């Protein structure tokens, strides 16, 4: 009876995670797995706790989030702005659409060598890569959002004698906000991926650097702790994002 009730809540999902962690722990403890690359779960957690308390993970995470935030903000502003203009003005669409379609399929990591050559190994290179990767989902979702605005809404603006700029600002933009948020949410995940990749390529701080460094120094538990941190951060970022989205897109 009780279990049937619990099965209808999220609790069952949390239970699965605990169960899997226990399996992991048992697999190592019983000698089922003897690989030095798989430490027991309890040790990973103990290590993680230490790294949090000592401030090492928070510091590394801070560096990563800072880079991600800057790149993401630049990309979001550009993506929304250009997406609105491309969606609304035929001329801008004709001008930029071929270029966008050419650049969009290029996997961002393939720009890493160029980025290093042009921007060096520092923050600029990472911010550029993050921005490049998060730009297109925002752009494309904004663009298709504008295309989906009901002509009746635009004509409503026209009958009230609004000019094109006012129609863009007061009708197209708010009407497109739900799709813009979809793009922003997709980009948030991509931003996290890209910050880790860029830090694994060249960095002396950040969570990506931390994970790679742990592997190189055979601090296997720390490596897992870093990955676990990323899982938590990704979950938390999305959680906060969805909250903000619900607040803004309330209709």
């Amino acid at each position, binding site marked *: 009876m009780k279990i049937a009730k619990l099965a209808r809540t999220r609790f069952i999902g949390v239970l699965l995670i605990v169960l899997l962690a226990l399996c992991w722990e048992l697999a190592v403890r019983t000698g089922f797995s003897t690989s030095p690359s798989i430490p027991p779960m309890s040790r990973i957690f103990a290590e993680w706790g230490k790294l949090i308390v000592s401030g090492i993970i928070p510091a590394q995470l801070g560096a990563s989030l800072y880079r991600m935030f800057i790149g993401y903000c630049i990309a979001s502003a550009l993506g929304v702005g250009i997406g609105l203009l491309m969606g609304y003005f035929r001329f801008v669409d004709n001008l930029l659409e071929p270029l966008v379609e050419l650049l969009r399929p290029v996997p961002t990591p393939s720009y890493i060598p160029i980025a290093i050559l042009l921007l060096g190994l520092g923050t600029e290179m990472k911010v550029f890569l993050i921005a490049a990767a998060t730009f297109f989902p925002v752009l494309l979702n904004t663009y298709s959002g504008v295309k989906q605005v*009901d002509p*009746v*809404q635009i*004509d*409503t603006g*026209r*009958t*009230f*004698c*609004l000019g094109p700029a*006012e129609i863009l600002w*007061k*009708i197209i933009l*708010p*009407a497109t*906000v739900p799709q813009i948020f979809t793009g922003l949410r997709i980009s948030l995940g991509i931003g996290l991926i890209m910050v880790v990749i860029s830090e694994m390529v060249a960095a002396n701080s950040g969570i990506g650097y931390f994970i790679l460094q742990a592997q190189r120094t055979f601090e296997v538990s720390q490596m897992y702790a870093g990955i676990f941190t990323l899982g938590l951060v990704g979950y938390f970022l999305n959680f906060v994002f969805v909250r903000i989205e619900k607040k803004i897109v*309330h*209709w």
Partner: protein
Amino acid sequence: MQHATQAEAAPQRPFLRIRDVRKNFGSGEHRRNVLSGVDFSIRRGSFVSLLGASGCGKSTLLQIIAGLQKPDAGAVELEGRQVDAPPFQMLYLFQQYTKSIFPWRSVRGNIAFGMESRKKWSKQEIARRCDELIELVGLKDYGDYYPRQLSGGMQQRVAIARALACEPDVLLMDEPFSAVDAMTRSSLQDLVLRLWSSLGLTILFVTHDVAEAVYLSDRVVVLRKSPDNVALDMRIELPYPRDHLLTPEMPAFLQYRHRLYEEIHHAEAAR
């Protein structure tokens, strides 16, 4: 019918003049003639219904009058000036009011929408006028509601209030009540009649409902498919204020309805 007249006795400069308006849709093989030389004038302060079966081009004509579409030939003149873009004095109310009012704005925000972009009123004046209009269209206590929380009839009231907020001389209404239930429709009809007479509006009202056209208007223009779009132009000499119980029982009402119904039926049969 003794009341059927052709055009009105031409004054020096008609208030709203629809001059030989022509419109085609599509091109090449698919080219379809929708309006071929529609020509009539409307006096200030009149309530004119454009009545016709669906597909006769009445909505297209209304959009051309509103300046939302361009005619292929001919012109619309408001007080002698040609309408090339939506003019300030004229507002178009959409049939799809659910799409026309903005879901991200509250009732108050929607009503303020038109006023905000006309630099005629201060912020305080806009707020005060919003309150007045909310009261006027019977939405008191709903000012902070959002469209999704309102019924269809209430949404249409918001659209009407939003238009009136800009103090237009002319309202162009495209089948505004075709999507609401009969009860709501009659109360909205009376609301529009009351606003029309108290605010001195000129209303052009597109409908395919014969009884609605007779009940509301002082003139009905029957449209049919191109060519020769204007099938009948008829004055409705029923006394105002009109009443949902008394007016439809008047013999004249029934005669008007009969005549218009015949005309539309005739136009349909001739297709």
